[in-house]
């Protein structure tokens, strides 16, 4: 116990003596959260479109001005023909061009459907898909508002958990998963390898302290740091981005704790294979942060990946934590729904903790 206290004191002294890093470590994620909370947006606003209107009826003028009024679309200009608009599409000045056929309104009056053509810039496929969807939804609304009602084949939509379809609700809790992994895995592996580099780990090994003690005590300050970090991130999410919080704080706390334990254990494990701080950093980038961003479902849906990559996602802690944190915050789930994810994180954490204690004992 005395020895552990000595250790703890030393680790905290390290943290305090380097106020610049401490500042960076604790505030950077919050700044990045604010930054990326705005940057990472998949919902599209201000779709720029051009119009080629061969119809000239008041009805279709109305359609165009309704579009503009919807806040999703911005009209960039009217063109006499598609050919005139072509250049704008190629240059990327407009995302889409709406072509309204001549006598379109007359056709409607005779009871026939009128087809308008939307020419999209498919080079940005994501954007094009979204634009098509938005326009579709817009038309449906427009029709029901302006056209006589008849037999319709319709469905109503209920958007559960995020009725306003705010993408920040989805991404902001996700960022927590990534920042926590970064702090836990990268910082611990680097600080332990640093002791390897300055040779003090050899002395610790010769001292009558067990590797278990060394690990636990090295981890504690970072655990503390991560807890502060997690609270800051949640606070920013709640107070700034107004992400709903529907679950219980207790279940979130427990989950974060287990997730951090998993990250820390993996960080220690990395430090037992890395021989220098640079290598520790590369390893933690490649083995923890990149997978946490790419393969966890943070932005890119796991379900759309090829089967092989999907299989790979099962060993990535962030995958499970994303399910947990989004579940708790947005869906209000409790332990009942997330216990399997928690068990996996526990197993992951204990597995690497045991392995690294073992490796530290043997190798150093």
């Amino acid at each position, binding site marked *: 116990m005395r020895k552990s206290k000595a250790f703890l004191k030393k680790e905290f002294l390290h943290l305090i003596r380097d106020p610049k890093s401490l500042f960076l470590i604790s505030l950077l994620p919050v700044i990045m959260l604010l930054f990326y909370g705005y940057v990472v947006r998949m919902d599209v606003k201000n779709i720029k479109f051009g119009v080629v209107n061969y119809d000239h009826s008041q009805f279709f003028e109305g359609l165009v001005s309704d579009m503009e009024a919807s806040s999703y679309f911005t009209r960039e200009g009217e063109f006499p023909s598609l050919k005139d608009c072509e250049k704008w599409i190629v240059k990327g000045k407009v995302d889409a061009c709406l072509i309204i056929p001549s006598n379109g309104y007359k056709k409607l009056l005779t009871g026939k459907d009128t087809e308008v053509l*939307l020419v*999209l810039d498919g*080079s940005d496929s*994501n954007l094009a898909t979204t634009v098509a969807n938005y326009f579709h939804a817009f038309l449906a609304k427009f029709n029901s508002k302006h056209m006589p009602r008849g037999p319709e084949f319709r469905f109503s939509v209920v958007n559960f958990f995020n009725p306003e*379809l705010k993408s920040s609700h989805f991404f902001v809790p996700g960022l927590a998963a990534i920042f926590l992994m970064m702090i836990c895995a990268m910082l611990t592996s680097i600080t332990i390898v640093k002791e390897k580099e300055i040779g003090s780990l050899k002395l610790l090994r010769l001292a009558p302290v067990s590797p278990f003690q060394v690990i636990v005590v090295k981890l504690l300050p970072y655990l503390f740091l991560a807890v502060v970090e997690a609270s800051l991130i949640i606070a920013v999410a709640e107070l700034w981005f107004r992400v709903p919080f529907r679950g219980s704080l207790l279940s979130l706390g427990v989950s974060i704790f287990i997730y951090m334990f998993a990250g820390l254990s993996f960080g220690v494990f990395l430090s037992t294979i890395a021989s220098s701080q640079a290598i520790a950093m590369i390893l933690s980038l490649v083995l923890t942060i990149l997978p946490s961003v790419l393969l966890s479902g943070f932005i890119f849906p796991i379900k759309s990946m090829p089967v092989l990559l999907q299989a790979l996602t099962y060993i990535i802690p962030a995958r499970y934590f994303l399910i947990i944190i989004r579940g708790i915050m947005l869906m209000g789930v409790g332990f009942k729904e997330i216990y399997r994810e928690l068990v996996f994180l526990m197993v992951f954490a204990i597995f690497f903790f045991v392995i690294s204690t073992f490796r530290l004992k043997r190798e150093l």
Partner: protein
Amino acid sequence: MRRILAIVKKEFKQMRRQKQTLLLLFVVPVVQLLIFGYVLTTDVKNIDLGIKDSDKTVFSRHLIDKISNSGYFKIKYVDTTPRGVEELLKKRKVDAVLIIPEGFMRKVLRREGSQAQLIVNAMDSNIASIVTGYIMRIFENFGAGILKGSAPAKVKMIYTAWFNPELKSVYFMVPGLAGLIITIICTLLIGFSIVREKETSTLEQLSITPIKPHELLIGKMIPYALGGFLSITLALMVGKLWFHVPMRGSYLLLFGASFLYILTALSIGILIATFSTSLLQVLFLSWFSLLFAIMLSGLLIPIRNMPKFIQFLSNLTPLKFYIKMLREIFLKGGGLNLMLMDIAILSLFAVVFVLISSLLFRKRLTA
């Protein structure tokens, strides 16, 4: 000239002996492209759709077949009320539930105004709107089929996507990723190589020989520029042959733009190396600049959605302009006249970064 050549020869020999460099040059572009090409897609597939069919008519079954055949959904029949759906969503059994009420088809045909209900887990707003869009299209087509003349006239949409009619996101991603790969390779490799020379103090040894700082820099840049060209060629070959990304523009323009960008990326690498004394610092700084570039270059996230201030910031990353050009050359077959502005900006970046990095490098070398 002889001295530049000597440095070039030396760098090539070192590259050949350093396995990790070769790995970075040859394997990383291919692997990265293969993995990212598949991962970095916002296409949504395999949506778990729960269906509660209380109608149980031929029509409703036909509708479900249509949905199932669309290729986007995995159908699960569930027995639930709208209230019970929440539980299903929470347990992640399904992503959305379509509830077809009793007598739905009959009522629709009799114009009694019944409607189905789609309940979506909208946590991921992007997925939610895509799912809604899919279902909407299916409903429209289906409705048009069965209601035929009896429905009122309305405005319908047909669309065509130029340059990428099937809206494959891989077409969009591959050129962007090629730009990213070049950034990683050029910036990191030259940064590493310079800092390694600092650490082993061979750089000091070089500074004592009659070689001039600019000769040293040119000598160092040539091999890595070639490496950059090689890896981008490799990446683009994978894109063309594996992902069948169309190449519609001119190769000359492609390599011209790449040349400008490689020059910029190498200069940034040199700049980072002049500020660093260890590999760790190089890594840290390049990771930071890379993150900035990835986020703000429009590689993944549309720049237009960002706040004005951040949109302005995005102009500071050269990668943005390079990726834009790559996409235009590849998919739109854009010619020189279309991208004069981008070329000008990229050239400006290249000149500025080359100047700054060589000035600082010279200063550090002689102090």
